[in-house]
């Protein structure tokens, strides 16, 4: 076994590692789930550990989201599957349905990122048909058993996630918010430097674009899970929603500005606006350090806007409009 392989395993072999905590939590839940299914004499009770394995995610929010979506998706899917197998008795048609639903299941796998429940609907219908395929005479009782066992498994998964080494997304969300703001500032600075034609600005622009877009995608991914953690705290949820809304809107303004920066301004206009652009760059750097300084700097910003606005050049109009959006967002955030 290679050295990096062992080093990586060693690095995560402690309770600080979220993966290690998840592995322990799931192993415990799996143990309990299997014991329950044996001692409660559940029919096809292996669905309990199987559901535990699928539902339990790295974080509490993730588990709650997947648990709920899986539960709703399973009920809907089993209902569809149940109706179909009640109505169809030919073995060959069942075979064909199995192929069709399996294909459909993997077609809808792309929805996994948006809503896991959408993927579970055809999956559960497929399972109902699969059960009929293997044991046609016991199908109805097994389908009901699946629903029952899945509910136990999902509940067990949620309980273990909440009680054993619960991992909240809150610190990660807070860290990510800070990180997004920083990257946003870097990105705007890179754009302004490119407008001012600094050396290496193209590479910097590319790098900051990639980092900022990754942060935006990560924000949305985390929020999708986190929203389940704070459903009881509506005020906090609203604050985070507002943050996401503003960073998204600023992002859209910045993407448009980047293109303007790539295209560049006419030389005479650029030199005329140079001082203004440098000032914006300073304001943006100040925002990264201190939000009070930003508020003060916004007064200067308004003067700069009047400098950009009356020009007839469409590029400058775009710059003024985008800076306006950026300012509005920062005002709201402050």
């Amino acid at each position, binding site marked *: 076994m290679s050295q990096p392989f062992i080093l990586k395993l060693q690095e995560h072999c402690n309770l600080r590692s979220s993966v290690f905590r998840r592995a322990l939590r799931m192993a415990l839940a799996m*143990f309990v789930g299997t014991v329950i299914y044996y001692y409660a004499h559940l029919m096809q009770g*292996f669905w309990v550990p199987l559901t535990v*394995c699928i539902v339990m995610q790295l974080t509490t929010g993730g588990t709650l989201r997947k648990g709920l979506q899986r539960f709703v998706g399973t009920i809907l899917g089993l209902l569809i599957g149940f109706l179909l197998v009640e109505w169809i008795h030919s073995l060959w048609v069942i075979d064909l349905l199995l*192929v069709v639903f399996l294909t459909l299941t993997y077609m809808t796998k792309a929805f996994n990122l948006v809503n896991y429940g959408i993927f579970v609907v055809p999956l559960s219908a497929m399972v109902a048909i699969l059960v009929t395929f293997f044991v046609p005479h016991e199908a109805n009782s097994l389908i009901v058993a699946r629903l029952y066992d899945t509910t136990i498994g999902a509940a067990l998964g949620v309980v273990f996630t909440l009680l054993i080494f619960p991992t909240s997304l809150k610190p990660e969300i807070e860290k990510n918010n800070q990180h997004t703001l920083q990257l946003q500032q870097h990105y705007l600075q890179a754009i302004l430097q490119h407008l001012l034609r600094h050396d290496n600005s193209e590479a910097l622009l*590319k790098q900051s674009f990639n980092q900022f877009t990754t942060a935006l995608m990560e924000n949305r991914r985390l929020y999708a899970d986190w929203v389940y953690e704070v459903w009881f705290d509506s005020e906090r949820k609203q604050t985070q929603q507002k943050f996401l809304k503003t960073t*998204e809107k600023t992002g859209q*303004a910045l993407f*448009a500005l980047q293109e303007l920066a790539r295209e560049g301004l006419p030389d005479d206009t650029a030199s005329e606006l140079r001082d203004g652009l440098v000032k914006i760059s300073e304001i943006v750097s100040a925002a990264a350090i201190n939000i009070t300084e930003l508020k003060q700097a916004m007064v200067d910003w308004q003067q700069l806007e009047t400098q950009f606005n009356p020009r007839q050049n*469409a590029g400058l109009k775009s710059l003024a409009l985008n800076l306006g959006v950026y300012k509005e967002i920062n005002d709201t955030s402050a």
Partner: protein
Amino acid sequence: MLNYLQREILTRFDPDYNYFKQAIRTGLVCLLSILVYRAFPATYSESYWVVLAAVFLVQTRLGATQWQQMRTLSLCVLSAAILGYLSGFVFNNPIYSALFLAVTTFIAIYLSVFGLHMAIACFFINLYAILSVGLPTASSCLLQRFLMILLGGALALLVCFLWPTRLKPQLRRDEKIYLRTLAEFSHALVENYLHPAYPQQAEKFEYRLHERRDRLLRMLNAVRHSQHLASEKKLLTINEQDSTEEFIVRAEQLFALFISLGNIRHYVRDVTALNFVTEELKLTHQLLAAALYAISEHTQWNSSNLQTTLTTLRTKATEHPELENGLIVFVDTVEKILVVIKCLNPLS
């Protein structure tokens, strides 16, 4: 909601999409495994494992190249078969079974530190540990189960030859899909911000747009990744390398320009003011989407209709002071997009 789902599902019936191809592979291997299963006499009590192994293990076809995918799948089949066999020694005892599954699950999750592919592979291997414990059999049948899982795995390997992964064609396909995703984004933009319910439910519509935007970024990353792999393996000639790099630059440009087009909704205080030019905006987005489809298929596309619409927009801009600046920026952005489109498709 139903319309949205219907369109989302229909767009996936496209032979260029990887999900579609994987779904077809899964359906096909299911059909093959059912035929094999039905061919076994009833005395082969473990023959159903052929179906179970084939349909789930085909999902472990993971990796950037065909060779890597086959290797991962083979290792997963072997591991699943071994676990299926070993489970036979524990499933009579509840505590041993529970310990067995706790250990396999711990290992499966712990190994996920090695990335997404490892996590997926481990998930499917662990699935067989759970299924094997849950579907007990006599000790004398364990070898049969082992062999049936191998047979199912062999069928899964067989369908991997359907649409084998080759880096160079994959790169071209990714480029094509990126352009189509951009066309879908163009449609989505106008459908969302011009929707009559947008002012009341802006958050919902914005959420959909962000989801589309993320999809676009994922595709852009896929193009970059394919290009990186293809050049790393020295599969591209100097000309091909240059044209791909040029494509990526243009693709990034188009991304920024399309976002810029959608920004018109932020440039007006009241988005309903855009009703003044609804038809022109819709038509512009439709024509741009058509242009992107044309580039992706290397077919001819005529920009004269778009030019006429832009002229109308310019005229209307002077009639509406609140919209003027926003519309000028919009028209200017469309013209920049046309320049990029011409660079990508000389037939335009």
